[in-house]
């Protein structure tokens, strides 16, 4: 095999190609979306949401407190017992189709707003987040009037009011993952977007108004962790769905203990991306890059541990570093940007702390030598080699653009190492041998396994974890189960 590591990457200059922000109009201040309208928070408190690429405030949003949660849950209950709960499935379906269509029509606006509030590259919000969010509503719209055929009995029933708490890494997409199946099955919702990324959820509230959903069917409460806690603990909520860290997921499972409320959890991960010596290495390198540097590594199913067969480890690392040299880090709104901003100061601190631990524990650090903008939160793509299984960077979720590289000799060793974390969300396999793909896929304790690809998502494809990565599935027919009772 010819090593290409000595060949310098082509020196391509890119002119700036920023997406215009004219398409988005951001209000200076937002209320809470309760009962179909924006209302001021009871306590009158607001906080700023920042553009992580500039640290400039974009708007201020309301801090929902317990009285607001009470009010939103009551509005959702009224809608459940009234206008939404009384609708036949075919009517619910049409409302969801409307939402999907408006999302498609306003997709550019959503993409720009998502990149502004989250820091992710416009290429990703435009090509991944927003189209998938629309597709999710479109997919579940079609289930609303077919539930008796879904395999949950002849007359499956909704649960009632769903309390849904979502993270900041895919703000609109996670809202779609939560709302679409809940609404299709006839539930009503109280959704709490993440503290640092509330704006696309608030724009979605406007879309929900435009689609004409009965007031109270969807309520959106912005706020911090305390808002989420109040929602999860609220006795008027029949079902809780959470996506976020394993640590918070465990707290929620404890809070729900003994209440009989239905719970689904989509939590953290530390996925192994396993590369065998017979893999198409250039494709594998693309998959490794997509696996861990997509969305700055703010992905619960990110391929954050590269397990590479010892005989090709040096080659793969060389090619990987060379490929990383072509990545462009910077303005999220630039259409050529590959790596955007880290979502928050807090997350940047966590990535910095864990990376420092990697060095202290003896792993070898390599970071892309690229200029970082003066303002904003940034972290260069980073690769740790000589990582041992006991290192924190091999066990803990970093949720940033940091890859830990471990090696293996035999398939059995690859499986043992891949499964050696408390998580079990996802995994990748790279090999040309079909039988080995399925042999590996059977043994990897993970809810999603990508073979010769990585980070693919589809509304028809169930997503969710084994073990401490949570329980329940989102997407596909399986995604209905979390919102239906017998």
């Amino acid at each position, binding site marked *: 095999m010819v090593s290409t590591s000595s060949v310098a990457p082509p020196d391509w200059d890119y002119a700036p190609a920023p997406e215009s922000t004219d398409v988005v109009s951001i209000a200076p201040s937002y209320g809470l979306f309760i009962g179909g309208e924006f209302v001021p928070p009871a306590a009158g408190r607001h906080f700023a949401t920042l553009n992580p690429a500039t640290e400039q405030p974009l708007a201020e949003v309301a801090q929902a407190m317990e009285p607001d949660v009470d009010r939103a849950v009551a509005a959702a209950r009224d809608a459940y017992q009234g206008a939404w709960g009384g609708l036949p499935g075919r009517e619910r379906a049409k409302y969801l189709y409307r939402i999907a269509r408006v999302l498609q029509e306003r997709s550019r606006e959503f993409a720009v707003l998502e990149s502004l509030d989250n820091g992710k590259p416009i290429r990703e919000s435009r090509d991944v987040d927003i189209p998938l969010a629309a*597709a999710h509503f479109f997919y579940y719209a079609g289930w609303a009037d077919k539930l008796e055929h879904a*395999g949950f*009995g002849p007359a499956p029933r909704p649960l009632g009011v769903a309390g849904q708490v979502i993270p900041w890494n895919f703000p609109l997409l996670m809202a779609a993952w939560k709302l679409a199946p809940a609404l299709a099955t006839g539930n009503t919702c109280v959704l709490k977007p993440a503290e640092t990324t509330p704006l696309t959820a608030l724009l979605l509230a406007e879309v929900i108004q435009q689609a004409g959903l009965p007031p109270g069917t969807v309520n959106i409460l912005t706020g911090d962790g305390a808002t989420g806690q109040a929602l999860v603990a609220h006795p008027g909520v029949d079902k809780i769905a959470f996506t976020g860290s*394993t640590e918070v*997921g*465990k*707290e929620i*499972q*404890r809070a*729900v*203990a*003994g*209440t*009989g*409320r239905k719970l689904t*959890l989509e*939590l953290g991960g530390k996925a192994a991306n396993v590369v065998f010596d017979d893999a198409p290495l250039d494709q594998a390198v693309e998959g490794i890059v997509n696996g861990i540097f997509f969305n700055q590594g703010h992905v619960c199913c990110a391929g954050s541990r590269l397990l590479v067969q010892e005989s090709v480890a040096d080659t793969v690392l060389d090619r990987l570093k060379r490929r990383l040299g072509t990545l462009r880090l910077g303005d999220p709104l630039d259409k050529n940007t590959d790596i955007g901003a880290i979502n928050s100061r807090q997350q940047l601190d966590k990535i910095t702390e864990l990376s420092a631990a990697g060095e202290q524990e003896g792993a070898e650090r390599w970071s892309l030598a690229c200029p970082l903008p003066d303002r904003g939160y940034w972290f260069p793509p980073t690769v740790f080699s000589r990582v041992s299984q006991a290192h924190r960077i091999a066990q803990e979720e970093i949720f940033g653009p940091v890859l830990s590289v471990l090696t293996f000799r035999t398939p059995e060793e690859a499986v043992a190492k891949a499964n050696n974390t*408390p998580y079990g969300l996802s995994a990748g396999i790279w090999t040309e041998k079909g039988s080995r*793909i399925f042999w590996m*896929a059977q043994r990897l304790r*993970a*809810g*999603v*396994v*990508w*073979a*010769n*690809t990585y980070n*693919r998502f*589809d509304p*028809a*494809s*169930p*997503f*969710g974890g*084994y*073990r*401490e*990565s*949570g*329980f329940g*599935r989102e997407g*596909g*027919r*399986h995604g209905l*189960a979390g919102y239906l009772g*017998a």
Partner: protein
Amino acid sequence: MPDRGQHARLDVRKTYKLFIGGAFARSESGRSYPVTGRRGDLLAHAAWASRKDARDAVLAARKAMPGWSGATAYNRGQVLYRVAELLEGRSAQFADEAVRAGGIGPARAAQQVAAAIDRWVWYAGWPDKIAQISGAANPVAGPYFNLSVPEPTGVVALLAPAAASLLALVSVLAPVIATGNTAVLVASEQAPLAAISLAEVLATSDVPGGVVNVLTGRTAELAPVLAAHMDVNAIDLTGAVPADRAGLEEAAAGNVKRVYAAGRDWAAEDWTVTPSLGRMLAFLETKTVWHPIGT
């Protein structure tokens, strides 16, 4: 002519032990407790399992996991069917035990045992079918072959229903092992003997040691250990008293266990009704595999 020399034959009583890793053992603690019939008559001294016995049972269940979950579904189905064959041969014994435990007459007992055997046969047919019901080929919008398949959750702790008729016992245990999990069953505290007799059937059938482990003793002592155990993947709280449920569910959050039978009173459960798939699906994970399509 009567044989004047004949004595009334003294029956040989059974020692009821724990069943861990395919072997019958007394509790490592040396403890036992009296099990009585409805009128207070002594039926046996059952082993009073310790927390250490519970941990040993989890170890045995974990050890049995690769073999049992890795067996073909056809094989698991045959192994389970074989259990039904042996149960059938011992049906009189189970009915007799049910009568001695009290509360029901011989006819009702025989009927319950027959229903339990039929329930076991029902589950024996599921291992090679459940994937076709709960799996899927997903039509994703791209050149990918995308399959969802069910896989066993792992080691499942079961708190058996207090009633502990053989039917109730079979109804909670069979779905767990039919789906390829391994089990640590805490028998009904008041009526544990049927569970041990069932273990004797399992031991002499083709079920590998460790796939089912049976503990007798105090549920309040054993359940918290299993609920908090970091190598138990799921827990069925059917036999938990309502007052203990919240605490056990809280403990289960330590490693994000799947909890079955939360928030429902199972004391009044009618076990004679044909079950739903619920008890199987509760202990299955869905794995989705993406594979590109190309030349």
